[in-house]
C-alpha cells in the first residue's frame, strides 16, 4: 500500500515537472519530445486510476498522433538557420525552396 502511494506521488510529481518542461524548454523540438513523454506518463496515470479506455485513447492520440502532428508542424515552421539539426534530404530542401 505504501509502495503504491509512493509510486502515485512520484508519478504526479513527474507529470507536473514534465508539463513544466514541455512548456518552458528552450528549443521547440525539445518541447515536443517532452510533451510526448508527458502523454505516456499521463497514460500510466489513467491506468493507475482504472480508466483503461481513456489510457488507450491517451496513448494512441495524446502520445502518438499528436506527437506526429506536432513534429510535422515543427518540420514546416522551424527556423531556416537552425544549425543544430542534421542535414535534410534533397527532396525536402527542394520543397522548402519552392514554398
Amino acid at each position: 500500500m505504501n509502495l503504491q502511494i509512493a509510486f502515485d506521488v512520484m508519478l504526479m510529481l513527474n507529470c507536473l515537472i514534465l508539463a513544466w518542461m514541455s512548456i518552458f524548454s528552450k528549443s521547440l523540438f525539445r518541447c515536443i519530445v517532452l510533451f510526448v513523454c508527458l502523454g505516456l506518463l499521463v497514460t500510466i496515470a489513467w491506468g493507475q486510476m482504472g480508466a483503461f479506455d481513456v489510457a488507450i485513447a491517451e496513448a494512441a492520440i495524446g502520445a502518438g498522433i499528436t506527437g506526429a502532428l506536432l513534429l510535422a508542424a515543427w518540420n514546416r515552421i522551424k527556423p531556416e538557420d537552425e544549425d543544430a539539426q542534421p542535414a535534410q534530404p534533397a527532396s525536402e530542401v527542394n520543397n522548402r525552396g519552392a514554398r
Partner: protein
Amino acid sequence: MFNQIDLEYNGPVNDPKASWLITLCSVLGFLIVLTLVLLNYDAHNAGLRPYVEGSLSSSGVTNPVTAVLLNFRAYDTLLEIAVLLIVVIAVLPLRNSKTSLVRCIEVTNHDLVLTSLQRWLAPAVLMFAGYLLWAGATQPGGAFQAGALLAGACVLMFQTGVYRVNYTSIMARSLMACGLAMFIAVGLALIWFEGSLLKYPQDYAGVLILLIESGATLSIAICLASLYSSLIDIPGTGHAATFESGS
C-alpha cells in the same frame, strides 16, 4: 516568455516578471481549486454509475464505457463524429479528384530500417486495431482507439514518401463520411422501425453498435491521417515532403 512559440513576434519579452507572475498565480490558483474540488468530491456516492450498471444488460454490450458512448449517449457520439468530419473538410487540400486513393511512387533512396519497420510493425498495428474494435464490446477499447491506432499505422506508412494518398478522391471522401453515414442510416432506420432516434431493439443492439463502430473506426482513421498529411504536404508542389522522424 512565449517568444519560442509565437513565431511572428521576434522582439524581446515586454515584461518578463509580469508574465511569470501571471503564470505562477494562475497555475497555483488552478491547483488549489482542483485540490479543493478533489477533497470535497465523494466519488463513490455520486454520479450515474448505478444507473449505467443497472441498465447494462439491456445495452447489448458489457463494457460500460461503450454502452454509454454508443447506446445511452449515442446522440453525443453522432455529433462528435460530425464535428471531426467538419474539421477534416476544413483542412482538406484542394486537389483533383481524378487520381486513385493510393499511389505508389518510386523512390530512389530506400531507407532499409524504415522499410523493414513498416513491414514488421504495420500489419501488427492493423491487427491490433481490429482487436481493439472487437474488444470494445466487452473490454476497454472501441472505435476511437482503434481509429487512432489505424491512423498511427498510416503515419508510419507515410514516412518513406512512397505512398501518396489523394484525400479528395471519391474513395477517400466516402471513407471519411462512412462513419457519420452509418450512424445516421442506423438512426433513421431505428426511427422507422422503433419510432425513436438511436433507440436500439435489445436483440440487435450489439450488432448495430458493432456496425456503427466499424464505420466510425474507418472514418476516424482516415480523418486523423488526413490531418497529418495536410501538415506534411507542401501546398503548390503537389507532393509530400519526406519527413525524418529522427531529425
